[in-house]
């Protein structure tokens, strides 16, 4: 098989699997769903590994598959750019996807939408591969929207649940706000560079570094700044950066396997990937880089705080994802694109691991997601326990673990950066280390250690919090809709979606699920430990991204400083880890763990007291800084209000009422008057004739 055919096969195999299972899944035996899709994704993974191996030595492959359309002098194409960046992404995507496919056999085995689910996740794999393998902006947009579509379908997978179908609509619309920016950015690129092909655009870009455009009359703005910020707005939607982050926590309404695959490991990192891919453009605008960095640091810090007060196991991990995406964005802002991609990769492994671990816990707890009802699960679920511990240690940046290498490099890059906003970013990522360690180990201790709290849990007060939030959120729709959604919720239990089951009864012991769940956990735990140690040298300080990621080292010295420091002081990944024990981030992480241990193991009264004492802060955090209610009140209700007014006043009253029917009424009145003239009485007509003759005569006599 030639390489071209392999490139083509990698996205198409999952697509065909998705089509087969999607169209015929119901007719075929149940097992066909996972056999076919796992074959597809598994082959894609093997081929991707071959491609990555090949890309280590071979030059980048950049070619058109087919011409989508031609308009004037413009050609829109579907094509692949396979270099080490895309090859690495392909391996990560297909590997995590494969793990999630296997895991799903266990997680969804009771669900009546079994085949549909496999079809969707395979379709997602196809879309994500199209996105990362693209060699042009149009296909990027295709992949971008297609992953958004699958995300929509999967968040709303249990479509009878009001919370799920609220969350998926919200996710789609918020992402569309970002997509508006991306689309305009693409339009700017096309207008000024005359092409949507990456290679062409990147080659032309430096000539436009000083070019200005007039978005507003008389206000010259740098072309590259405007274009890059527009593109980045797209990344803010997909990669959930403040203020477009609001959809990601709600996306946890989807089944846990897709939270791991889509909303942690792959899709949400598409924005990071895109910016790294566009490094030749972003390097030309310090303003855009500062914008990126500030948005990233806000996300990294403030979303971390929200992780502290969550009690739903998936939401804690979701806020941690938001915060980690902020870290990656900070690295992008510091022009340390390779570091961002490096963290993207390590994060994909350990965050997928944490989510799948959380899913395993949820299964063990009979679909109770409230961490206040858990405890001491290490006794019952040893594999989940150990792998989750590994994931948590990687996440908080424990030296030698994967997350340490990438996260520490981000902190160093923020420190070394000199653009506007970098000192704030440095502060944010440092504080973020403590916060991450604190909420991660709060979760860890509450779930795996301490008392077996489900044994004392009363009633089924758990799991209701999210419902309450939802009823509240539903208000932004018309009241009838909200009421209906609410009413219908109580009757929706009969559907087979098994996450509706409510918790473990006090006398039951949790059980660890079977090997289809444990195997992916173990396979993900391995790279969560090792990948940083193995990959840091080639990816950050070697030639891995040579000619792929472009950095203006004079203007943005961060990555060069890091390389210098590594080569002169640290020398090896092991040296870096040992040195890591003596640095401030490690102290912060360790104290985060200690404080979590003290608060939740030793003195559980303290958090309650703090919550009570600082109720205002607690309230702000519980309301998630008010983003949701603001969006709901201003944007959602505002649009409905304006729409209603435009319809009732504009269409109904003015155009139809005054103009259209008004004209009809006027004609009606006029004809009423004229009708009176035709009375049918001879003497009326005779009289009119006489007047007429008289008038004519007067007129002619005068002239």
């Amino acid at each position: 098989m030639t390489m071209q055919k392999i490139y083509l096969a990698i996205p198409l195999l999952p697509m065909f699997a998705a089509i087969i299972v999607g169209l015929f899944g119901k007719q075929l035996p149940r097992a066909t769903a996972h056999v076919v899709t796992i074959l597809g994704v598994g082959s894609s993974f093997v081929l991707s590994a071959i491609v990555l191996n090949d890309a280590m030595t071979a030059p980048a492959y950049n070619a058109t598959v087919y011409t989508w359309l031609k308009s004037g002098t413009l050609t829109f194409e579907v094509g692949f750019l396979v270099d080490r960046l895309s090859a690495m992404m392909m391996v990560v995507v297909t590997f995590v996807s494969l793990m999630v496919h296997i895991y799903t056999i266990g997680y969804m085995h009771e669900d009546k939408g079994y085949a549909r689910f496999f079809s969707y996740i395979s379709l997602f794999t196809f879309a994500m591969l199209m996105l990362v393998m693209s060699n042009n902006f149009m296909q990027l947009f295709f992949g971008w929207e297609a992953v958004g579509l699958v995300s929509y379908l999967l968040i709303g997978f249990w479509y009878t649940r009001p919370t799920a179908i609220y969350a998926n609509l919200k996710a789609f619309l918020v992402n569309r706000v970002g997509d508006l920016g991306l689309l305009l950015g693409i339009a700017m690129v096309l207008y000024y560079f005359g092409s949507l092909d990456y290679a062409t655009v990147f080659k032309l870009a430096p000539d436009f570094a000083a070019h200005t455009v007039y978005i507003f009359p008389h206000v010259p703005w740098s072309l590259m700044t405007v274009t890059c910020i527009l593109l980045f707005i797209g990344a803010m939607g997909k990669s959930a950066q403040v203020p477009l982050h609001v959809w990601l926590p709600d996306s946890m309404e989807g089944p846990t396997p897709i939270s791991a695959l889509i909303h942690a490991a792959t899709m949400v990192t598409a924005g990071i990937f895109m910016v790294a891919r566009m490094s030749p453009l972003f390097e030309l605008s310090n303003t855009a880089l500062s914008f990126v960095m500030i948005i990233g640091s806000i996300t990294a810090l403030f979303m971390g705080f929200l992780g502290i007060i969550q009690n739903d196991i998936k939401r804690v991990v979701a806020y941690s994802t938001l915060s980690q995406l902020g870290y990656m964005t900070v690295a992008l802002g510091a022009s340390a694109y390779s570091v961002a991609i490096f963290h993207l990769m390590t994060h994909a492994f350990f965050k997928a691991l944490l989510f799948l671990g959380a899913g395993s816990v949820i299964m063990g707890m009979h679909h109770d997601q409230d961490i206040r009802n858990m405890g001491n699960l290490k006794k019952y679920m040893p594999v989940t326990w150990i792998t989750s511990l590994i994931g948590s240690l990687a996440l908080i940046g424990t030296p030698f673990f994967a997350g340490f290498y990438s996260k520490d490099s981000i902190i160093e890059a923020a420190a070394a950066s000199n653009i506007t906003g970098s000192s704030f970013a440095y502060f944010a990522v440092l504080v973020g280390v403590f916060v991450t360690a604190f909420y991660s180990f709060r979760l860890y201790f509450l779930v795996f250690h301490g008392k077996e709290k489900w044994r004392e849990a009363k009633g089924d007060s758990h799991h209701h919090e999210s419902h309450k939030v939802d009823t509240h959120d539903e208000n932004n729709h018309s009241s009838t809709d909200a009421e209906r959604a609410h009413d219908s919720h109580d009757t929706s239990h009969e559907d087979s979606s098994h996450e509706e089951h409510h918790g473990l009864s006090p006398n039951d012991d949790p059980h660890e699920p079977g090997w289809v769940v444990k195997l992916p956990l173990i396979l993900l735990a391995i790279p969560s430990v090792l990948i940083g140690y193995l990959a840091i040298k080639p990816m950050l300080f070697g030639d891995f991204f040579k000619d792929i990621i472009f950095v203006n080292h004079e203007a943005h010295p961060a990555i060069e400083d890091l390389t210098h420091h590594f080569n002169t002081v640290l020398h090896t990944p092991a040296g870096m880890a040992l040195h890591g024990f003596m640095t401030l981030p490690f102290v912060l992480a360790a104290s985060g763990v200690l404080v979590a241990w003290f608060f939740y193991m030793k003195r559980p009264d303290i958090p309650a007291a703090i919550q009570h004492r600082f109720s205002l802060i607690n309230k702000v955090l519980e309301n998630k800084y008010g983003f949701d209610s603001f969006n709901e009140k201003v944007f959602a209700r505002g649009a409905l209000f304006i729409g209603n007014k435009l319809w009732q006043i504009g269409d109904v009253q003015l155009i139809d009422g005054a103009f259209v029917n008004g004209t009809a009424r006027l004609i009606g009145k006029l004809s009423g008057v004229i009708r009176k003239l035709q009375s049918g009485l001879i003497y009326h007509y005779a009289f009119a004739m006489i007047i007429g003759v008289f008038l004519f005569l007067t007129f002619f006599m005068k002239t």
Partner: protein
Amino acid sequence: MLNNLLSHILSLSIWVPILAGVAVLALGSDKTPNATRWIALVGGLAAFAATIPLYTHFNFAYGGFQFQEGIRWIPAFNINYHLGVDGIAVPLILLTSFTTVIVVIAAWEVITLRIAQYMAAFLIMSGLMIGVFSALDSILYYVFWEAMLIPMFLVIGIWGGPNRVYATIKFFLYTLLGSLLMLVAFIYLYYQTGSFEVVDFYALPLGLKPQILIFMAFFMAFAVKIPMWPVHTWLPDAHVEAPTGGSVVLAAIALKLGGYSFLRFAMPISPDAAHYLAPMMITLSLIAVVYIALVALVQQDMKKLIAYSSISHMGFVTLGFFIFNSLGLEGAIVQMISHGFISAAMFLSVGVLYDRMHSREIADYGGVANTMPTFAAFAVLFAMANSGLPGTSGFVGEFMVILGALQANFWFAFLASTTLIFGAAYTLWMVKRVFYGAIANHHVAELKDINKREFLILGVLAIMVLGFGLYPAPIIEITHATVLQFISQMHNKIPSVVSAATY
């Protein structure tokens, strides 16, 4: 023989469906419903087959009129039966004959009263609309244009909903009043050229002022048909009262008559006025895109919502026309074709629900996906296409027009792009309320999923929507030479896409 047929292919395209319609009227009756349906279907298929050579034998490299044929009709006024098509008309003709087949199948078990008349109305209307797309004599065009209103009037008036009288009269008066001004323009041009030939009109040099008057006269006729804001209010009423087939033809084809006519008459006959009035046209288009999308958001009736959505999508068509670049123009043409498939599919989907529940109110539904999973999959696909998702045909036109609009002005593109948000909002919110959630009531609980016939028509449309989304090149290829010629006809004022690198 074959060559002889080919040289009259346009006449065949027009008269085969009309004669088929007459045949259905003559042979069919409610006593023999199945025979009537089959005659109509065979007629529709024959009519569709008659239009296929327009594509297969089209000269893609030639931008002028092809398949021309003509006979003198009223020599006293120099009126001719002159037909001919270019690359803009052919896709629309194919869309028309295709949609007619869909409409006939869609009516199969649904229409039980006056079947023959119903089928005949659509077949005849199909021929008349193809006449509009292929007439090169303005009086012939005018006759087809007005004649097409009659079957549509009857379809809404006979098989329509409870408020059909108001809707039909509104529809009829709105379109008729606009058309009368167009007739005045034709007569004026006749006095200038001594002919009713479209090509003679093109050659006529006119000052800006007469051009503006002519343009405005055409505008009144075409803007109503498209419809553009603020002369759009007849469309939601007509859709709500029309039977499913009527809505399908109205949205998929009738609206395109207006868009097509801008390209055939208003713009090339008065090119300076088109440039002069472009700001007005762009403003009205953007109002349609934004204002109408917001209005669509608050609709409670599914058909009204889709009707408003149609107006909003047609805003992209007129926007693409008047930003004067090839991206915008070709995007607008693709948008017309794509909207034909998507709006047809959306109205057919509402029809599927209406046939079962006899309600179009969103509030009467909820959780339909539980009882009609296959149908829900189709509906979500079409909803996504309506939201302009890449990979569906709905994306192509909007994408091209937005790219083109940015070359005219950043804010045109910005306002047009809001459709990404609003289009998704009104479409997917409707999907959420109708299809998702728990089963809302016992009516929904009793719903049966789509049958084979419904599966067939929705499946065919799904293939078209996805096919042209993944490979839109055929539409562009057939229009390309014509678009180039059109651009040069517009006095070369249309700058082709120039990379700023060259200046």
